[in-house]
């Protein structure tokens, strides 16, 4: 029997028809040849980030499209609630590493495929995306400000939520990157504290109260709240019920408590199947040039019939991540604008959404740390700067501030532009 690794094996007939025959809709640079299949099978390396709902589907799709050198990263272990869609896992795999089990399954089912698993410490999904985005941008080569296109590593990104999803193709340095369209992922809406504390109306308000106020106060197990610990959830459920009864609020269920505490996003196999497939198709196009890839952002929704829409997301000229110029921040009154206001802007604004920015600058040729919360001794030393105004800190008009944050592997540069022109400098 012919070796499954052999590109001439009949099982790859489907792919060979696309890759070895010319056609009217191919990419202008496409040259049909048997070398393309060879390339995707032996040389083309793909990194899949996540082996969960989308990851399982992607691994299957990529393996059946001929890709063999696949690496998959995931920090999670398998849970019971994954099994309704993460189909590479079985009941007996609960507790094992997602990346490892997924890789083993694919390698067994599709002979010749070499999926390499990596058990990797990660972050929440949007932060992880931004980090990878920043990493790919940092690998770009510019010569005399001109981008060397051979240094581009494309990023295909997909996301789902219930019956909605999106897929996009990012060519770092060339097309819109994750940060260019950051306002498409607005920060999560939280309930105002006064509602939670004084005027609860919904069962969610009761749950938030117990989670945010009562747990830290009573600290029943002397540890951080763990959404995966059924005892913790049970405690939250019981205390929330008490509060709901006290305020005559109905509708509190155990499922709701879990949803609020763990920020659960509903998920189903079909949406993941669609979005992953869209991504895999684009990866195939990018790797083989068999046709022009999607340009560049597609949304999908099958709540009401089936709806898709593809449009070109625009690259921002002043994007914090991928433009080569510092981002200008206009400041109305630098004598009143405090450092903590700047940090708040960086965290709260939809365009930045930073987590814990550390700021430094250069004054009179010397490095100065403005504020950094990640190292205790530095935090204590620089804490007093938070309440000082920008002018008091020695930051003049057009000064540059370097920002380090979880959301990017590289330092970002901000330029402060003061709108009050006739500020008296002492």
């Amino acid at each position, binding site marked *: 029997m012919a070796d*499954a690794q052999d590109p001439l094996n009949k099982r790859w007939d489907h792919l060979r028809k*696309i890759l070895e025959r010319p056609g*009217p809709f191919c990419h202008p640079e496409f040259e049909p040849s048997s070398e393309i299949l060879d390339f995707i099978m032996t040389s083309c390396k793909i990194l899949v980030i996540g082996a969960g709902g989308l990851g399982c589907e992607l691994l*299957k799709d990529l393996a059946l499209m001929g890709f063999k050198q696949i690496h998959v990263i995931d920090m999670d272990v398998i849970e019971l609630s994954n099994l*309704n869609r993460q189909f590479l896992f079985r009941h007996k795999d609960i507790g094992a590493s997602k990346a490892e089990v997924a890789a083993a399954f694919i390698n067994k089912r599709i002979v010749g495929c070499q999926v390499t698993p990596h058990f990797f410490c990660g972050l929440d999904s949007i932060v992880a995306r931004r980090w990878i985005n920043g990493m790919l941008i940092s690998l770009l080569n510019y010569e005399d400000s001109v981008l060397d296109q051979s240094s581009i590593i494309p990023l295909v990104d997909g996301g789902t939520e219930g*019956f909605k999803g999106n897929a996009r193709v990012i060519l770092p340095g060339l097309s819109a990157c994750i940060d260019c369209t950051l306002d498409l992922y607005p920060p999560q809406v939280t309930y105002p504290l006064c509602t939670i504390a004084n005027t609860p109306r919904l069962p969610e308000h009761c749950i938030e109260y117990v989670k945010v106020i009562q747990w830290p106060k009573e600290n029943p197990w002397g540890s951080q709240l763990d959404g995966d610990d059924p005892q913790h959830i049970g405690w939250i459920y019981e205390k929330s019920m008490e509060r709901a009864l006290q305020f005559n609020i109905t509708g509190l269920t155990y499922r709701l408590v879990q949803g609020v505490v763990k920020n659960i996003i509903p998920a189903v196999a079909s949406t993941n199947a669609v979005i992953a*497939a869209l991504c895999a198709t684009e990866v195939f196009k990018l790797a083989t040039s068999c046709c022009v890839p999607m340009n560049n952002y597609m949304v999908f929704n099958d709540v009401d019939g089936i*709806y*898709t829409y593809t449009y070109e997301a625009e690259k921002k000229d002043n994007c914090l991540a991928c433009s080569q110029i510092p981002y200008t921040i206009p400041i109305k009154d630098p004598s009143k604008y405090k450092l903590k206001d700047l940090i708040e802007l960086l965290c709260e604004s939809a365009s930045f959404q930073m987590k814990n920015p550390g700021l430094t600058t250069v004054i009179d040729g010397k490095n100065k740390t403005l504020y950094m919360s990640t190292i205790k001794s530095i935090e204590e030393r620089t804490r007093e700067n938070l309440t000082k105004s920008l002018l008091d800190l020695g930051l003049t008009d057009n000064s540059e501030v370097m920002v380090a944050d979880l959301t990017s592997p590289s330092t970002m540069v901000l330029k402060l532009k003061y709108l009050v022109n006739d500020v008296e400098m002492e």
Partner: protein
Amino acid sequence: MSSPAPKSPEQSEKSKKYDRQLRLWGDHGQKLLENAKVCLINATALGTEILKSLVLPGIGAFTIVDGEKVTEQDIGSNFFLENDSVGLSRAKVATSCLLELNPDVHGDYIDESPEHIMAHTQAFFNNFSVVIATSLPEKILLPLSKQLWEANVPLIVGRKVHPDNENPDLRLEDPWPSLKDHLNNIDILKLDKKERSHVPALAILYYYLEKFKKDHGGIPITQFEKDILRNLIKGGNCFGEEDEDGNTEENFQEAIHYVNTCIGQFKVPPQIQALLDDDRCTNLTQESSSFWVMCAALRELVQNEGSLPVRGSLPDMAADTVNYVALQQLYQKQAQLQAEAIYRRALQIARNLGQAPDTISEQEVKLFCKHASELYVASGSCIADEYQSTAFDISSYLEDPDSLMLYYAIIRGLERFISEFNTNPGQFDDQVEPDVLKLKGIIGKLLAEWGCGQAIRDERIHEICRYGGAELHSVSAMLGGCAAHEIIKLITHQYKPLNNTFIYDAITTNSATFVL
């Protein structure tokens, strides 16, 4: 002090496993899914991808009908065929691989072609909730679709729909007595500053709406009139004094917002009225489904009260707990009373029709009433009728050279080609060019039958021949996910199903829906 809190409920394994999807279609949807049986004809890559997304969420049972043996090519595009299964029954292998995905699901297979089944046990397919057919030649597809159409599998059933971004159902233009009494007791102008910042937007809106009605003799209809109402509300904020930033308080802002979305809405949306006037609702028989019986009961309520039952839920609003909860309870109570009345009446109607007493559950009626403003009946169409019809106006679509309708013409042509020549166009390298001509001829004939003056551009036909029947897994996977979800909608009676043809072009990523 309140009674001790109930202990955390025991969660079943199933409930935990299906948690993420239960949040989308609820326990009642899950039950319907688990009671359903589907049949897949032909375990192609597309077919197994569809089944995968039904098995994972826990469909009750499936049967695969397929007389083919596994080939090498199959293994290259179908995930649910093992590497060493070449030559074995495709139905058998696919069934076993799919069953691994979920021990709750029952599955079996029939190693026979669908032609064989149609010839010997035709009624076999009628026993399923849904039948899925992939790569089925026209000569089987047409009689099968006719048969299923007549057996009511899988298309005509009453459906309910999930709201996505609906407007709140406030009923302030014509509140029922207990609501009216409650709201009349709230005099916005007599509240002190603190109370005023906590009064629910609903009460604010009612107060100023009443004022408007007194001054103008009716509710505001035009934008101009609504502006007057909005300004009245604005004037009530801080008694006309502005706070230090000139901001309107949150509850007043909400009230202003509701003017647009909650005043002057249809008492009974026209599409719902059409449903209530439908023959299936006004001329009930013993065979009428519970959906139409409930519609008949609903119809009577609408005739008596002039509006649909109250939805019963309220959006959150900036208010203190006591006031908000009091209002919430009023709405819930009214919804409950109306649902109970409809339930009693529906039972009576069912009894008079000679139906068994347990066909309609109270839970079903409650859900029905809650979504009364979104009821939707999806009527499919019979594929045989579509294929045999000559009154098909494809011309107007094809005027736009990029319209995806061109692929419909191509696929219909493709099916005829396969029927005539028993092979895909372009199956072998040296056939690509001659097959382009043959396919072009077939499509031309089809278009002429449809009375269509346009032609399909040569390059599109060439592209199809280039594929030579190749099945790209990622494209099958994408369509598989879409189809599986449509099937789930039909089985769970939730969310609006596709009406009725979806075409997807993976080259451009464009898609379109057509009603054919």
